[in-house]
């Protein structure tokens, strides 16, 4: 709501001109029948000159109306589109602030629908609803006053059916709101279904499940039809009813007005003018109908938009943040870290203690699902760790300004993600002003330089969505280069070598180690590969959320535990055969 209010406040200067223009137009529109009446009365008096004069008056007033209409439409639509733009960008910028957990709960497809589809409902209401509302107020009331002046009695009779409109309108309002909200929600769900089918298309095809996913989509599709029809049953009733009430006024006019004319209590000109007024009233009456409908739709959509705009990013600076912290060197201390995912009900990490000196390399290994990724994500504050559990250079991570924390840590996620952009842009993600030489250097360390150079467009090759046009190992190495180019004092690599062959793996390990040492970077690398672990200063073995072994690789080997067995399986057996 804040966005909209602040917008209305900021644009306050436009209210008076727009209102003035609308008032002027509505007033002029009410004036026209007065001249019609005079013209008709002139006809009965057979006064040709007067008739032509009033005719010309009408055309002059009409031209004025048209000019003003154009002007306020220009301003109003400009304003509404500006608000629409601000809503869209605020939504998008809000998404940029949200943490990972948010996107696990909210579907991206649905979030997209809020930006494109829901803003539309708001926009339509603001334009049509505003104009409609003003017309209801101005045109409706002035018309009625004019009618009242001409014939108080007839105008009251004529108004009776129109008054019935009010209770009707109120009753329809909240139902439309409810149904429209359902329609929008299901539209979001439909977007989600399509998006998922696209991302999972290879699985769907390989397992020949096209029909099943089509069926799932059709379910939502059918629901969408049903919800829309509920809305139609309501909306479709509103219009004819209003029409009916207006026509009822006309009957009353003919009957009662006719009798009054016969009794010589009003002139025929008044009757004609009244019939024109009812014609004029028809519009604001119809406007009541669609304004209600549009308003309720907009209310539903605005609710969905506000739900986003008003949600606070869970991971952000707060009053604990110590803005004196400007940079980090790289000591990482983890102190009895326990962690449970907000959505899960078991502890994933159960009392982790770790200490990494600046410039030190820590290897982490352990079974699938033991909590390695979780640990790295907590250091990065992708999720919030519990208080007083993770410290960098002695500062608790929760107190380090998020920007400082993130700008000092380089990261390759376990599942490499590339943007639909050039390879160069993908590598430079974290350092836009990096030179091409620096990009090449990073690519060299990640052992991807030769591959890139063999492509027709080299660094300017555009990769498909999520890097789909590259091989698994190519994607992974670009993700490594992307972290390396940042030269940040701390680097976290999550299983960075899972998709490369042993030869490439060795090359990368060697170069990476030299690079990390040379720049005195603190690094944590998770891996299942012993070849990567043996070069670490320190190795920790994580199992079911606990560190079961920790120490220098050689020491761990001597202990004869998990590490030893891993070593045997991957190294010794090979040599024995």
């Amino acid at each position: 709501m804040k966005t909209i209010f602040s917008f209305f406040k900021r644009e306050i200067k436009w209210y008076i001109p727009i209102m003035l223009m609308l008032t002027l137009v509505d007033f002029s529109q009410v004036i026209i029948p007065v001249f019609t009446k005079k013209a008709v009365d002139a006809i009965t008096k057979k006064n040709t000159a007067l008739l032509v004069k009033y005719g010309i008056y009408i055309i002059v007033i009409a031209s004025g109306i048209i000019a003003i209409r154009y002007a306020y439409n220009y301003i109003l639509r400009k304003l509404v589109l500006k608000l629409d733009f601000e809503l869209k960008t605020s939504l998008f910028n809000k998404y940029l602030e949200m943490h990972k957990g948010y996107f696990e709960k909210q579907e991206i497809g649905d979030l997209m629908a809020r930006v494109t589809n829901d803003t539309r409902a708001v926009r339509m209401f603001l334009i049509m609803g505003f104009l409609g509302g003003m017309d209801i107020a101005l045109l409706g009331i002035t018309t009625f006053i004019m009618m009242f002046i001409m014939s108080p009695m007839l105008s009251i009779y004529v108004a009776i059916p129109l008054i019935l409109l009010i209770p009707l309108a109120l009753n329809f309002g909240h139902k439309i709101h409810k149904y429209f909200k359902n329609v929008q929600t299901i539209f979001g769900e439909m977007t989600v279904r399509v998006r998922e089918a696209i991302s999972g298309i290879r699985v769907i095809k390989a397992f020949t499940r096209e029909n099943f996913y089509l069926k799932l989509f059709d379910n939502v599709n059918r629901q969408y039809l049903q919800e829309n029809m509920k809305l139609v049953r309501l909306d479709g009733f509103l219009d004819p009813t209003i029409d009916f009430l207006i026509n009822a006024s006309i009957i009353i006019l003919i009957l009662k007005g006719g009798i009054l004319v016969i009794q010589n209590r009003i002139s025929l000109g008044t009757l004609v003018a009244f019939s024109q007024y009812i014609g004029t009233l028809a519009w604001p009456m119809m406007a009541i109908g669609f304004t209600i409908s549009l308003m309720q739709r907009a209310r539903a959509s605005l609710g969905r938009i506000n739900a986003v705009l008003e949600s606070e990013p869970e991971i952000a600076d707060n009053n604990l943040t110590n803005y004196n912290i400007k940079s980090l060197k790289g000591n990482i201390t983890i102190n009895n870290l326990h962690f449970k995912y907000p959505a899960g009900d078991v502890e994933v990490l159960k009392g982790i203690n770790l200490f990494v000196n600046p410039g030190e390399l820590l290897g982490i290994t352990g079974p699938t699902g033991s909590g390695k990724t979780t640990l790295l994500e907590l250091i990065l504050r992708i999720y919030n760790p519990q208080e007083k559990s993770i410290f960098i250079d002695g500062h608790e991570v929760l107190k380090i300004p998020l920007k400082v924390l993130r700008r000092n840590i380089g990261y390759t996620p376990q599942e490499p993600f590339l943007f639909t952009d050039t390879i160069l842009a993908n590598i430079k993600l974290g350092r836009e002003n990096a030179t091409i030489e620096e990009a090449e250097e990073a690519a060299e360390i990640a052992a991807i330089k030769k591959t890139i150079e063999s492509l027709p467009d080299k660094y300017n090759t555009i990769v498909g969505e999520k890097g789909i046009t590259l091989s698994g190992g190519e994607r992974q190495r670009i993700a490594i280069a992307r972290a390396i180019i940042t030269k940040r004092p701390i680097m976290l690599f999550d299983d960075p070598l899972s998709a490369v062959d042993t030869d490439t793996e060795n090359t990368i390990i060697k170069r990476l180690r030299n690079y990390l040492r040379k720049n005195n970077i603190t690094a944590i690398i998770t891996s299942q590969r012993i070849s990567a672990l043996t070069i670490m200063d320190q190795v920790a073995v994580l199992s079911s959320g606990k560190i079961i072994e920790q120490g220098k690789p050689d020491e761990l080997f001597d202990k004869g535990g998990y590490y030893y067995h891993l070593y045997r399986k991957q190294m010794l057996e090979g040599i024995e055969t």
Partner: protein
Amino acid sequence: MKNSNYIKRFIPYITKYKLLIAFSVIFLLVSTISSMLIPFLSKQAIDKFISTKNIQGLIHISILIGIAIGVLFISKIIQIYMTNLAGQRIMKDLRHILFAHMENLAVGFFSREPSGKIITRVTNDVENMNQLLSSGIVALLGDLSILAFSIGFIFYINPRLAAIVILPMPVAILAAILLGEKMERLYEKVRDFVVKMNIRMQETLSGIILIQIFGAEKRESDKFTEIAYGYRKTFHKAQMTSIILRQTINILSYTSIVLVIIFGGLMTIKGIATIGTIVAFLAYTQRLYGPLRDLSDKFSILQNAISSMKKLSSFLDEKEFISDPENPIEKDIKGDVRLNHVYFSYVKNSPTLIDINLEASHGKKIAIVGFTGAGKSTIANLILRFYDPDSGTVEIDGTDIRKFKKRFIRSFMAIVLQNVFIFKGTVKDNITLGNEKITDEEIIRAAKKIGVHDFIMRLPKGYETEIATEGANISQGERQLISFARALVYKPKILLLDEATAAVDTNTEEIIEKGLKKLMEGRTSIVIAHRLSTIKNADMIYVINKGRIAEKGTHKELLKNKKLYYELYTMQFSQIN
């Protein structure tokens, strides 16, 4: 007009509901006629009864008007309901077709086209087209019939006055045609901006965590803002064009009113017309321009819809299919796979696979190894017929796979993709992919065989645990294990494993290894792996280098060769120092 081609293709969808549409048109005509009668009867009331002071007659004619109003009310409600029902049903059919069409497009299409664009097609564009039907085509018929009736009535009442009054109409039509074209272009641009907006959001939101960590929020925000700004400006231009059209029609409508008053007045003075004629003419003039004004309003909606329709039409024209043969072969499949002099390139003139010959008979396990980016996954893509080779053949049981229906032949295969994909839904749904033929026992048996059962039982609700979109709430290794179970419950004759255990720890990998041996007896296994320990026991190992087969043989033979395989193998055990 040039739009006729696009429109033509959608006609079958419309004719499917011809009865419904025919009835809505009938009710539309009924409601139009009754609404047309009201001013006509009012004229009669004024001229015949009010001016002659005939109260009895006035009451009678009022009853007639009342009947017309009642008929109008009921027929309008029915018409609105039926029209919308038809529109919504057509949209539902269209969405179904679009989704099915999308699922049928080749994998290559999806690596080229951004998913944001495809999503826009199936959701937003259809939504726009809906308006073409519900407020477009039928309303158009309504408007045209109102136009025709109004013209008919005024010519019936007073042909001379009628001829004068409709004088400004051709100008209105000309304006509609001229401005219409401009609007069409502008609205098409608006649609393009929506697509771009969706593409941006899809990209940014999918990679949001990376953007945050690498500090690229500002850049992403700028990119989106630029598109949203373009949308705002273009949309305003488009809207103002329709406002100009609307106001042109307005001024012409006022001109007609003045013509009625002046010429009608002059005629009345001369005794050729009556006041009643003028009242009726005023009402009909409003009805005459109403549809035109409506059209100019709907023009924007219509233009928007038409440009969406074009987009949909070209999406439906997309022919990037892997086509099925005309006379497909169906036979029992043993699962012998053969690649025969296969050449393949993703991009013209840069071959990815060169002269690949490979054989995997049922009951055998073959392995494909090699440097990253060598073309291993591409071979799997060809066996699944995600792509067709440029030359050479992929054969199953000695038959070119292009002679089978794709879905027939794929139903004998299963794959664990290098990029695992997990759907939103339960663990069980992810394993069966909605295939109801797979029993719970089968799922559990397969999961137990490969040691996944214990992991799944540790999850809060076991097999019924809900997994978030793209598996966001489970670990990477766990995602792989679930994909593994998925491949096995399908009991494939041919199992393709593309780095299926890359993220899994060595112990789990061993368990899977043992389980697989039993499960795959008599079937064909094709294993792609960088970790050579998993493929040592393969019956045949193919070593791929730069798209060619560099070596083949058993583990022992290849070691003796002391070439590429030897290098890759010994690399695993070399200590880096």
